[in-house]
């Protein structure tokens, strides 16, 4: 069954994004395409149960959590389990005309001092199942879950007829939309597909246009981050007529090298290939690219955000920076489909707390807050402050500032007895066998750490390394001069209206 309604709305919008290019600079793009429509409620009305329903480029889902194209979306069995677990949408693992042949092994993980899979890498290719099997299963799942989004990721050779054929065959399943995989960085790219298309704006535009010639459902173009400036391919996709952009695909990577065998990780009979990197570690890269696409006036398309989402907060950040929904893969590969339940709970509670009724109420709220460095206020001044009643005396702030920043934390050994006299109740103390031991003390003293606010440059480093919540805060101080951006400074300097800002006395 085909969702004609979604398809027709998608095509209705097509002319709009061209005309919007010049005018639209506003951060919240929700109204441009009317997905995730902002609520008209009174600002302070309590929200009982937020509406998580999502609409990206005309593809609707009960919530903004989609499974990204990948190993978890390889079969009807998995898609059913995913929907039953609560996922809003599934982007079927990329299908093509011919099943590919995979290798073993396929994945590599990056652990960080005790936490598993901070980053993840794979050299698995697109589906290794036949087109007939995939199409039959997609149709079966769509029939069983009419209200969930079933999007199919496509990749075929760069040939107009091939694309026309796969689009038609795929849409016959009743799927809700298509996602063009122009992003896979390994294997397929060597055969002129995947990122080989996504790295060349002209190819991206051409293939997108071929697809749009026949597609009746919304078409998302999935971008590769393995480029110099994501906006060029984004614009190419928009020019080709894409209905939305998904990003990011995985990043070229080598997970590591085995120190005993000297083989790369993951290895296939002692050799490796540049695999696609993903997982929590890539989120900042993804957020940056999502924001760049979301704010670009020449693109002006709905965005499906992908890259390192492993908690509801990550999803909120993608949406605040302009994404209409998010796609998740690695976190599911790590923990299973069940995590969506916590995504939904966390998002609902956060939206209730912030009094947001629908996704559109906060989508893009922060997109416009990121711009050129030159527009940042040079007079803005924060300094660090340590709450002594929270400090546990680990000294991490001190050594970070001393060696890694601006030598603005003082360390003072305080005699243990003297420290006890003004002892903050939060410090553990144990009496045992006639001895008393104070956590954080040793050799008869406790180190007291204090910020030298005269020389503190307000870099945040100490507050980032501090292991205690709310122990080090950055507090605002009056600026040394009236608010002035670097751009304004340059103009005023040229006009002789301001003196040159002197280098700091303390480096």
């Amino acid at each position, binding site marked *: 069954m085909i969702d004609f309604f979604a398809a027709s709305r998608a095509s209705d919008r097509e002319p709009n994004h061209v005309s919007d290019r010049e005018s639209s600079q506003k951060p919240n793009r929700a109204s441009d395409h009317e997905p995730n429509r902002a609520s008209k409620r009174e600002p302070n009305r309590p929200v009982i149960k937020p509406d998580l329903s999502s609409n990206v480029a005309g593809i609707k889902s009960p919530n903004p959590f989609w499974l990204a194209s990948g190993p978890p979306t390889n079969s009807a069995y998995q898609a059913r389990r995913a929907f039953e677990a609560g996922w809003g949408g599934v982007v079927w693992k990329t299908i093509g005309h011919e099943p590919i042949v995979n290798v073993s092994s396929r994945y590599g993980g990056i652990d960080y*001092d*005790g*936490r598993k899979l901070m980053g993840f890498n794979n050299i698995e290719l697109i589906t290794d199942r036949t087109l007939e099997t995939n199409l039959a299963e997609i149709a079966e799942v769509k029939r069983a879950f009419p209200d969930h989004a079933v999007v199919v990721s496509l990749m075929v050779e760069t040939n107009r007829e091939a694309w026309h054929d796969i689009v038609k065959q795929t849409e016959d399943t009743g799927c809700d939309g298509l996602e063009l995989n122009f992003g896979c960085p390994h294997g397929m790219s060597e055969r002129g597909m995947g990122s080989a298309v996504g790295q060349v704006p002209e190819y991206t535009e051409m293939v997108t246009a071929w697809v749009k010639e026949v597609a009746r459902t919304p078409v998302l173009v999935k971008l590769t981050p393995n480029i110099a400036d994501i906006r060029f391919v984004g614009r190419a996709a928009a020019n080709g007529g894409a209905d939305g952009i998904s990003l990011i695909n995985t990043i070229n990577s080598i997970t590591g090298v085995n120190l005993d065998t000297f083989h790369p990780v993951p290895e296939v009979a002692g050799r490796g290939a540049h695999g696609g990197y993903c997982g929590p570690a890539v989120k900042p890269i993804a957020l940056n690219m999502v924001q760049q696409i979301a704010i670009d006036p020449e693109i002006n398309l709905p965005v499906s955000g992908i890259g390192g989402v492993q908690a509801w907060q990550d999803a909120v950040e993608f949406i605040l920076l302009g994404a209409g929904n998010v796609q998740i893969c690695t976190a599911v590969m790590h923990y299973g489909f069940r995590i969506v339940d916590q995504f939904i709970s966390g998002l609902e509670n956060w939206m209730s707390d912030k009094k947001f009724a629908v996704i559109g109420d906060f989508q893009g709220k922060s997109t416009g807050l990121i711009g050129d460095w030159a527009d940042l206020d040079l007079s803005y001044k924060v300094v660090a402050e340590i709450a002594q009643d929270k400090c*546990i*005396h*680990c*000294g*991490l702030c*001190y*050594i970070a500032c001393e060696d890694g920043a601006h030598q603005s934390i003082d*360390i003072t050994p305080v005699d243990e007895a003297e420290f006890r006299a003004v002892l903050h109740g*939060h*410090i*553990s103390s*144990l*009496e*045992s*066998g*006639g*001895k008393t*031991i*104070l*956590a*954080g*003390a*040793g*050799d008869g*003293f*406790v*180190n007291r750490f204090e910020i030298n606010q005269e020389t503190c440059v307000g870099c945040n480093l100490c507050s980032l390394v501090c*292991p*205690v919540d709310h122990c080090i805060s950055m507090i605002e101080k009056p600026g040394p001069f009236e608010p002035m951006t670097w751009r304004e400074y340059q103009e005023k300097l040229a006009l002789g209206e301001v003196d040159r800002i002197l280098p700091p006395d303390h480096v």
Partner: protein
Amino acid sequence: MLDNTHLSRTRLSAGQLAANFSDLHPALSTDEARTEASRCLYCYDAPCTRACPTHIDVPRFIRQILHSDLPGAADTIFEENIFGGSCARACPTEVLCEGACVDQTLLRAPVQIGRLQRSATDASPPRNEAGPDTGKRIAVIGSGPAGLSCAYSLRRLGHAVVVFEANSVPGGLNTFGISAYKISTAFSLSEVASIKSIGVEIRTGETVDAGRLRDLHKSFDAVFLGVGLGATSSLEVPGADAKGIVEALEFIAESHSGPLSDCRVGRHVLVIGGGNTAIDVATQAVRLGAESVTIAYRRSALEMSAFAYEYALARDDGVRFEWMTRPVEFLGESGVISATKMVKLNMVGTGRSAVLEDIPGTTFEIQSDMVIQALGQNPTTGLLNEFDPQILEDGRVRVDPETRATPVPGLFAGGDCLSRGAEIVDAVQDGKLAAAGIDRFLCGKPCIRP
């Protein structure tokens, strides 16, 4: 001498004994160690390092464990403390490194530094070498942790060292004075072996009296005294000569002298004392199969010198406590202990300085076929007084706090003869400091190497 031949040997099976005396804190698996290591914040000027008497760079070795460099972690530990393995097993970490751990505040649970230290020291032996020969010879009296720590440090500096040990087996209290469920005999001897391996000569069965000490002081370039303490204190109450009344250190030593199945233990055991040794013997008695074990202490739980952790260990082993009471008479039947007459005490004042008074009319009896006195050791005043009374003060050897030099030139000291009973880790530090002091004494400052 230990006179307990009226008691039967332990009735427990060899398997049960092995289980009871297996490590109190078994070694962490590699995964466990790495997970625990990941909790360490890597503090700067870390409180744990400062709280360790030997100042082991704890964050450094934990980070080395975290990053799978166990030999490096072991080097870090042994660099400061050649008895890192013993300390990992027997240190009262709750009042040292782990008590100081900042996670004690953050998570109410310190990083398990002792167990991580064990992981590293188990994985990789010490691998230091003797320094280039200086031609200097030092005599070390006593092969306990103070003496051997000093000997090892001196050897690394290139000095020749001869250790004189009165006992036939080396290691001092590390070998005989700590219950086997904490430090096994074999482990203690393995530490001694690694110290010998860099050329430290140990002469066992060599008792040093005042005359011999004078000779050694003349014939060697310097002498280190690590003689520990003397005989254990005994109660002077009627009936104290009954069979079955033993000293704590004798009871512990027996568990190291032969197979555990040869150890004799009463069915009902009364332990007198409130220190860590009292706890050690009480739990050892339980582990050897005593049916009931009672600790009687003249003060209350608050004044015990046993650490809270040790107290909890004894309670968990089912040991009963009788507070504020003292023995007034040992009662025997045909010369063998059968019960102890106790009187309740009243504390006038507070803390350990409070005066204790008998409460008239409160005597009661505790039935037992074994009494273990854990009342601490007396100073080794005889030898030292005879050698030179000016080196003693209040039962302790007087030393310079930095170099551990006694008032007698060329004579240095450390360990329990200074502290009157402290931890292994304190003895190790004394030996280390004395070695540096001796080196400076012999070679000037800085020491010029050939």
